[in-house]
């Protein structure tokens, strides 16, 4: 029988007086001031903020296929160190996660590693080719119990196929997560279409390429009475379309990445491909609109779009570089910098956008639960006053393509707990 664990002096949601939290059998057994910790292991909270464990709806763990840049083990470690307890692993692996066999493999590897709950995302179309539906039902009823389907990296751009996908997943209780990008409008695109890309001679990725697909899919979801999720919303116009759709009761949710909350296309001046990402870094006005939308709830949650890439795929000319950046280990600090420090979100808001809403959207019923007696002890303890300096080679991911290299960020994950087990503590994975 495992010993109980007492968290001494923590502040749930960063509010009120510090309390003690006793964990027994992975569940919060007692919560209150000055609990009796006799016989329990002790973790001194020292006034740390306690939040429900973070949930990432969008990460590329690269296994199977690109184990040279990330594995489920290293990605899980990065996630645990970043305060995450559940991660949705995108389907664009090699082979593509478009069958029950592949999603079950990813799910089981996640369980073996055991640092976070790895929920595989299934591909919408076979091979991400956008031609015919993948076996969505088989993935949904597999051991992995897939609930989110996405061709992320590619847009399901064929309107009829998207309509069918939405209708079909409604029957499965699933969600289609769309990478909204009209491929005709972004052929050859390298950077956000705007003044900066124009001066740099980089072909533009117009905002309308995203917004038009978001609008179309909201209408398709309306007619299909289906559930739609928009991956990495990146423009002010997308926010307006989402507002319109939500006001009409269309079942649409959306995520924003940490980098779209903090970084802008002004970083492109030196052509360092560490800043290359899809959708591209946008303007400061977009960043402001996304922050406001996240605070208001028009954008539901933060998702990392964690995308490890090999050094040779970044240490090259801009157009040859692959798009994507690391995110799991920096997301919380970036959200603190972009949302908490300017007063747009409090800690309860952080719990909402980084844990509760994504858990609900992804159907991770064990996550994003209240910090209350009888609930799973799936938590993250954050030191809100600490700062740290990001070093790519110090992150747990095999790749080091972080755009925050050398930046000092606020907030530090002190410990992460998954069902009462400490998965990360003091910057080290506990396993």
């Amino acid at each position: 029988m495992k010993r109980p664990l007492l968290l001494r002096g923590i502040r749930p949601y960063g509010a009120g007086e510090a309390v003690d939290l006793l964990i027994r059998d992975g569940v919060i057994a007692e919560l209150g001031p000055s609990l009796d910790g006799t016989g329990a292991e002790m973790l001194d909270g020292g006034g740390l903020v306690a939040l429900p464990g973070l949930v990432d709806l969008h990460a590329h763990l690269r296994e199977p296929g690109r184990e040279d840049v990330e594995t489920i083990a290293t990605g899980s470690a990065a996630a645990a160190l970043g305060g995450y307890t559940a991660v949705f692993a995108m389907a664009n692996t090699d082979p593509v996660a478009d069958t029950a066999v592949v999603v079950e493999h990813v799910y089981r590897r996640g369980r073996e590693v055991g640092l976070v709950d790895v929920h595989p995302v299934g591909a919408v179309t076979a091979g991400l080719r956008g031609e015919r539906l993948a076996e969505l039902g088989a993935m949904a009823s597999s051991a992995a119990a897939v609930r989110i389907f996405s061709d992320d990296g590619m847009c399901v751009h064929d309107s009829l196929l998207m309509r069918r996908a939405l209708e079909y997943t409604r029957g499965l209780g699933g969600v289609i997560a769309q990478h909204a990008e009209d491929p005709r409008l972004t052929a050859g695109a390298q950077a956000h279409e705007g003044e900066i890309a124009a001066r740099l001679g980089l072909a533009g990725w117009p905002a309308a390429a995203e917004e038009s697909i978001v609008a179309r899919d909201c209408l398709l979801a309306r007619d299909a009475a289906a559930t739609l999720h928009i991956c990495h919303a990146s423009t002010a116009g997308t926010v307006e379309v989402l507002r319109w759709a939500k006001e009409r009761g269309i079942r649409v949710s959306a995520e924003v990445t940490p980098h779209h909350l903090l970084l802008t296309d002004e970083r492109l001046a030196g052509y360092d491909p560490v800043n290359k990402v899809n959708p591209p870094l946008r303007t400061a006005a977009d960043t402001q609109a996304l922050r406001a939308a996240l605070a208001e709830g028009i954008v539901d949650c933060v998702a990392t779009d964690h995308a490890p890439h090999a050094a040779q795929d970044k240490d090259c000319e801009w157009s040859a570089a692959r798009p994507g950046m690391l995110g799991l280990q920096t997301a919380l600090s970036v959200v603190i910098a972009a949302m908490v420090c300017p007063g747009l979100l409090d800690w309860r808001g952080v719990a909402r956008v980084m844990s509760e809403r994504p858990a609900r959207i992804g159907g991770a019923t064990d996550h994003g639960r209240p910090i209350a007696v009888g609930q799973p002890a799936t938590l993250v303890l954050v030191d809100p006053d600490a700062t740290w300096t990001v070093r790519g080679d110090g992150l747990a991911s095999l790749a080091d393509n972080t755009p925050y290299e050398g930046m000092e960020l606020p907030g530090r994950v002190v410990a992460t707990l998954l069902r009462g087990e400490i998965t990360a503590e003091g910057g080290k994975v506990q396993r």
Partner: protein
Amino acid sequence: MRHLLSTTDLQRETATALLDTAEALKQALLGREVRKLPTLRGRTVVTLFYESSTRTRASFEVAGKWMSADVVNISAAGSSVAKGESLRDTALTLAAMGADCIVIRHPASGAAHRLASWVPTHVVNAGDGTHQHPTQALLDAATLRERLGTLNGRTVTIVGDVLHSRVARSNIELLITLGARVHLVAPATLLPCGVENWGVENWGVANRVTVGHDLDAALPGTDAVLMLRVQVERMQGGFFPSAREYSISYGLTEARLELLPEHAVVLHPGPMLRGMEIAHSVADSPRAAITEQVRNGVHVRMAVLYHLLAAQEEQA
């Protein structure tokens, strides 16, 4: 000056100094039978071209040789580049062999910037994607200075595919730095996003790019017209309906030549599409400075190599 990557980085003093040096070199070589200066003896200049080019590459080679540099030419085809070697590895290899200066042309915008971040060698951008071609802008400015005396207060009209043109980007920045007014004439499909905001503001006086779509209206107030090349792939890309329609709206015909003031100069970076961008007779008229551009190109590139490789030592 450590590198020449873009005209955006060029201060007015530096640009003027380069043009003055080019002018001085031109005078020094005028009428000489042996056109060879010892300035860069023992220096190695590598031209690294990932795109085909006749005039730019030859111009750099001649410029280097007239200053006694050892010039090595490397093409993407027929080298290890063709075997899939990365730009970075190629650059490191050339630097390790003792190249003092790498002159690079590459289809990717920003390639010269990346190169400069990898190697200790001087880097000259000889054209990167749709970004910049700074020596072309310098040779255009040298030609206009010769013909017009000064660029300050002069109006230069740039016509055609500004969107995909590194020549246009380099010229706009440099001309404005040198005090000229820049007017762009193109179909809206071939104009970069937000181009109307390009320019500078000095002491509260703005010198911004102006944009129009009517060439006939622009020509009478123009001191120089710079015709841009229209690439064949753009014609098929739906940027405009047909070559004929483009020619009717934006081609420099004999009739349009008449609309220009007497002193106005016609420039084209070449290679020209005669009959479409520019009428045959216009290209060969005395108003056109197209062969002067090529001639000045050598002197400007000599000046650039001199400032990068020799002038700094003299200062030190």
